[in-house]
């Protein structure tokens, strides 16, 4: 009995040590690994959004209606054909932030060319500033419009220290209303991290008819 009791106590101590080890490990790794996807309706835009955030990074995509893009780029002086071309794409307003506390000195880098749109079993790239620059060159778009377009898009590559962030449109070469997954990749202090946001959806081309006179 005694022997059995001793063995039992040893096992109990072993279990306890193991348990403490696991719990301590969880204690230190859980906060770092904490990451979640939040979706809903953006309060300002009143349109769906997808936001991935970790203790270091926050990246939010808010749908833009094709009509919003038409109005915006027409307002920037683009010709109707160019406005039509832009608005045929699936566009999101995106906000990329380094949300790490300042004392952690965590630097985030990303490159849109490393992101991938997963759509109907295919992998597609985002249409970046550089892709559009080439299009505008061939279409002989005026410099003022090229400048407006370039700075309206999310930077292709960026490096953020704590509290830094950018807003910008991201352009997905997909049809209105398309459902897709987005694979994001970024580095925190040089270490590569990635995630896939599933079931994102491009805004539909909603036509709101003017009110008829009574």
């Amino acid at each position, binding site marked *: 009995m005694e022997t059995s009791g001793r063995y039992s106590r040893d096992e*109990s101590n072993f279990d*306890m040590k193991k*348990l*403490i080890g696991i*719990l301590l490990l*969880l*204690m230190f790794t*859980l*906060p770092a690994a*904490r990451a979640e996807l939040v979706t809903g309706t953006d309060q300002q835009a009143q349109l769906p959004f997808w936001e991935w955030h970790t*203790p270091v990074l926050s990246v939010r995509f808010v749908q833009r209606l094709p009509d919003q893009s038409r109005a*915006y780029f027409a*307002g*920037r002086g683009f010709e109707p054909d160019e406005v039509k071309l832009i608005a045929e794409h699936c566009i999101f307003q995106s906000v990329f*932030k380094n*949300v*790490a*506390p*300042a*004392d952690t000195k965590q630097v985030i880098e990303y490159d849109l060319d490393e992101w991938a749109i997963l759509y109907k079993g295919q992998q597609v790239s985002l249409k970046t500033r550089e892709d559009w620059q080439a299009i505008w060159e061939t279409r002989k778009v005026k*410099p*003022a419009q090229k*400048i*407006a377009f*370039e*700075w*309206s898009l*999310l*930077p*292709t*590559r*960026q490096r*953020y*220290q*704590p*509290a*830094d*962030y*950018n*807003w*910008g449109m991201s352009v997905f070469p997909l049809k209105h209303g398309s459902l897709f997954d987005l694979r994001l990749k970024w580095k925190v202090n040089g270490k590569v991290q990635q995630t896939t946001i599933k079931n994102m959806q491009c805004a539909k081309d909603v036509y709101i008819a003017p009110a008829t006179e009574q």
Partner: protein
Amino acid sequence: MMKRFKHILYITILIGLTQLGYAETDNTNSEPLHIVKDKPLAADFTLYDLDEKLHKLSEYRGRVVIVNFWATWCPPCRFELPSMDQAYQMLKQKGVVMLAINVGEDADTVFNFTADYPVTFPLLLDKDAKVIKQYPVVGLPTSYIIDPQGHIVYRVIGTRDWTDKKLLKSILDLKL
């Protein structure tokens, strides 16, 4: 058995508190300006403001200069203008210069914009985006703090609360 249960209970409580502490962590940043490595000399430029007054960066040597790149259509740019103006009211008395460089828009657009966002610091026009290309800017807004010797000392991507005491102190300390 009871002792073991207590151990587990204590550890669970400890983890709970740690997680709670994490959830309550204040992610606001107390160090709002980022130091620019090697402090490069700021590229000189000459631009007109809305009142057609010419501003040459190098003529502000001996003074701290805040250079902010912005556009009227950029929501965060609009967001930070009021706090920049508040800060300017304090900083100009100490000899600090604030230049907000509009990228790619014409004087009429910027002038109309000031009806909704009145500011007292000069709004410069970089209509052909030549000046912004001389700086390592890839997104708007981006701001640089230039010391009296003409070196870029701090950089900000996105907005800040320009009335933040620590931020103001960092700027004013450059005068020493």
